[in-house]
């Protein structure tokens, strides 16, 4: 029975022209075409999308949450990458 279980797909939807695709959820389908058709029925019943991407879940590689500390550490002490780091006199306009 279980050997006919359709693979799992992740669904990404562009809600409106000009915006990026955003993860909407996942579903099972036998192939990519069926995944797109199912995604339309499952995730866009109320005009939530103008474009759909699907990718088989097994091809997604994710960072490891237990390593989050080390992974993001390099950016942690670089406040000077943000504009608010710089103190400028109030007379300076349009900057």
């Amino acid at each position, binding site marked *: 029975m279980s050997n006919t279980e359709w693979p*799992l797909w992740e669904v990404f939807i562009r809600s409106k022209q000009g915006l990026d695709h955003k993860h909407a959820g996942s579903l099972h389908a036998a192939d990519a075409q069926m995944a797109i058709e199912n995604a339309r029925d499952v995730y866009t019943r109320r005009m939530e999308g103008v474009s759909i991407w699907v990718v088989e879940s097994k091809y997604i590689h994710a960072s490891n949450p237990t390593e989050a500390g080390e992974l993001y550490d390099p950016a942690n002490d670089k406040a000077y990458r943000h504009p608010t780091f710089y103190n400028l006199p109030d007379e300076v306009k349009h900057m």
Partner: protein
Amino acid sequence: MEKDFSEIFQSKIDEELKIEPKDWMPEKYRQTLIRQISQHAHSEIVGMLPEGNWISRAPSLRRKAILLAKVQDEAGHGLYLYSAAETLGITRDEMYEQLHSGKAKYSSIFNYPTLSWADIGAIGWLVDGAAIMNQVPLCRSSYGPYARAMVRICKEESFHQRQGFEILLTLSKGTEAQKRMAQDAINRWWWPSVMMFGPKDDESPNTIQSMQWKIKRFTNDELRQKFIDVCAEQVKVLGLALPDPDLKWNEERKHYDFGKINWEEFWQVVQGNGPCNKQRLEARKKAWEEGAWVREAAVAYAEKRKQKESLHAA
């Protein structure tokens, strides 16, 4: 080490941070969520059956289109929830197997029959109303995938309740017979809806742990009271009555008092002795078994197409 993990876990929850699939979690948290989410998914799927009963007999094209859309939403909700449960390490087929074998439960409310068109109104108003009461706090569940699925579900669910109320409102302004039909549906669906919130707090042993883990935000009795308070007012708009002679505003408590709940009936239905338990499960099993060839054919077709493509590429 385990202790460190569990302390970090609980402190994340206390800070209202979400737990995501790859984060460490206690085994009991995982199992409780699998049970809760899959039971919820099964309820959405089984819940299509009593309403599906009236699609072909809806009184107008407008009502038929609405009911079709609603039942399709329930299918979608089931799918969002199955996906959320799968992130916890159970497969879709395992969940179906648990439903079909009777190991997994679904909401007992769907073991009651839909005898008249007014039942579709009562289900929307009362059953979906109670479900929404339960589900809105779940949008803040500590488990990310479940919370996100619930946000989507709650957004879609509110039309379900409104269309149900509208059906009853229309009937309540109709002929005497239509009015009686609406009242009869409310009479039959009221108490089972009140029971949807589950056993009383002192008989719900998992509540404390679930509240600590924030996979439950209010107790069964709190939500039940809220539901009764809301419905007691809404029914006045219909010019109909809730079938509870003890229903009375309590000025001191600022809540409605209500009559005794028949818990014996509740447990009977949970244990499989409701009016439609057998019929519902059999319909699900039949759909699964008779759909086997479709699942196999789709896999075979996908396989064949993949081979053809690789031939072209070569």
